[in-house]
């Protein structure tokens, strides 16, 4: 319950936060919503000697349309996502996904940037970002770089983010009108991490799949994009045979860790089932 002692810093700009990261070195951690970091510190899994609180940095929070993309500040909370009229209209997959994350109190504090940066395969945003074809703005002492979500997640708690960088913004292309979406999450109870979950964005051309993105949560040490499953669907109708084949190919890339949510075999099977359901639900929401 009691974290180890640390020093607290509350910079007032991204530049100051980056400078502090550089000065204080790897024992410093960024504090966002605090709903992954503080729990780990309370159990002494993490014992940073400095916390750099991003809560007082202006400009890191907010949702806006820029051209044909949506830009979301990294400190935007899950509750902000859930209640955004702009997102409900333009990126309903993200709103649906946020509604399955944690509980109301956690959603008032937990941020989209923190959920992504944590790199926990149990978190929902990594797969949602893969399905949404998101990019991340990483700010460092040398300036900004923009990287794709696809390729960002390297391993358990490990991402492309360098220790002296801050994930400052998430950029997501607005999908064309008529796009279907779904996030299907199997969990033991409200607020739990997924036993298995699948995010889908789907566009049809008449009766055939024109384009599809499929991503899996908690199916391996990172969120996974199910490329083979996507490829198998292109040009196909959505029917029992194509769904079964996509689910089979999604299951083929799963390598889940057995734990109290089930053994690997169960989780793989559930990943297939969530993929099938997500595709079906997304298809029902397409204009086809």
């Amino acid at each position: 319950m009691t974290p180890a002692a640390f020093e607290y810093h509350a910079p007032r700009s991204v530049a100051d936060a980056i400078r502090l990261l550089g000065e204080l070195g790897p024992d410093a951690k960024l504090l966002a919503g605090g709903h992954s970091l503080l729990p780990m510190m309370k159990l002494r899994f993490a014992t940073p000697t400095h916390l750099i609180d991003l809560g007082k940095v202006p400009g890191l929070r907010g949702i806006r349309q820029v051209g044909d993309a949506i830009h979301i500040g990294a400190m935007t909370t899950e509750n902000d996502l859930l209640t955004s009229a702009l997102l409900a209209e333009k990126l309903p997959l993200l709103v649906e996904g946020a509604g399955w994350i944690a509980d109301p109190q956690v959603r008032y504090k937990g941020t989209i940037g923190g959920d992504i940066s944590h790199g926990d395969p149990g978190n929902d945003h990594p797969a949602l970002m893969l399905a949404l074809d998101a990019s991340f703005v990483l700010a460092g002492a040398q300036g900004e770089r923009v990287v794709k979500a696809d390729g960002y997640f390297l391993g358990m708690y490990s991402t492309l983010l360098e220790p002296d960088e801050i994930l400052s913004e998430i950029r997501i292309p607005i999908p064309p009108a008529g796009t279907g979406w779904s996030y299907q999450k199997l969990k033991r109870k409200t607020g739990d991490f997924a036993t298995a979950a699948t995010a889908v964005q789907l566009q049809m051309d008449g009766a055939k799949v024109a384009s599809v993105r499929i991503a899996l949560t908690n199916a391996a040490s990172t969120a996974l994009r199910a490329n083979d499953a996507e490829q198998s669907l292109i040009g196909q109708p959505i029917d029992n045979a194509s769904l079964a084949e996509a689910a089979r190919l999604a299951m083929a890339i799963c390598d889940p860790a057995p734990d109290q949510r089930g053994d690997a075999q169960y989780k793989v099977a559930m990943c297939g089932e969530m993929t099938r359901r997500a595709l079906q639900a997304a298809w029902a929401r397409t204009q086809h």
Partner: protein
Amino acid sequence: MANNHTVSFKLNGKPVDVSVEPRELLIHTLRERLAHTGPHIGCETSHCGACTVDLDGMSVKSCTVLTVQCDGSEMVTIEGLEQAGVLHALQQAFHEEHGLQCGYCTPGMITRAWRLLQENPDPSEQEIRYGIAGNLCRCTGYQNIVKAVQSAAKKLAAAKAASAAPAAAAAAEEATPAQQPVTA
């Protein structure tokens, strides 16, 4: 490394200054320094919501907030809901609908419901259950808590209608949707 920080915030309308180590959790500051022992501690993994307080218009689990993060904040705890000896509608409704037994989750539950009803004054049963999913209860089985929140929502709507009625009598026709009848 005990470099203390002075943190100032408003607690139930009253200004408060505390000097805390950065690692001090808000729930401990409230309970141990400020003697607001209504918010409770039921876990160390941020699940139970017994420590829920209202911080700048948000329900937060005060076990997962550092007191140093709260400088300049406005906070409401269960101790701040009663006004001049009159229970808040939620407190009254939890009593009338038997929405508590041991009472350990109750401060967090009511403080959460207080924010929920401000954001959604007329929630469905499903919205209430989803809206209090961050608050665990071992005693009630939740059923009577849902009834209590429903009852309080009706009372608050009726009170709002009553207080608005004399002043806004002229504007009433065009103004507002029909209020729930007072059947609580």
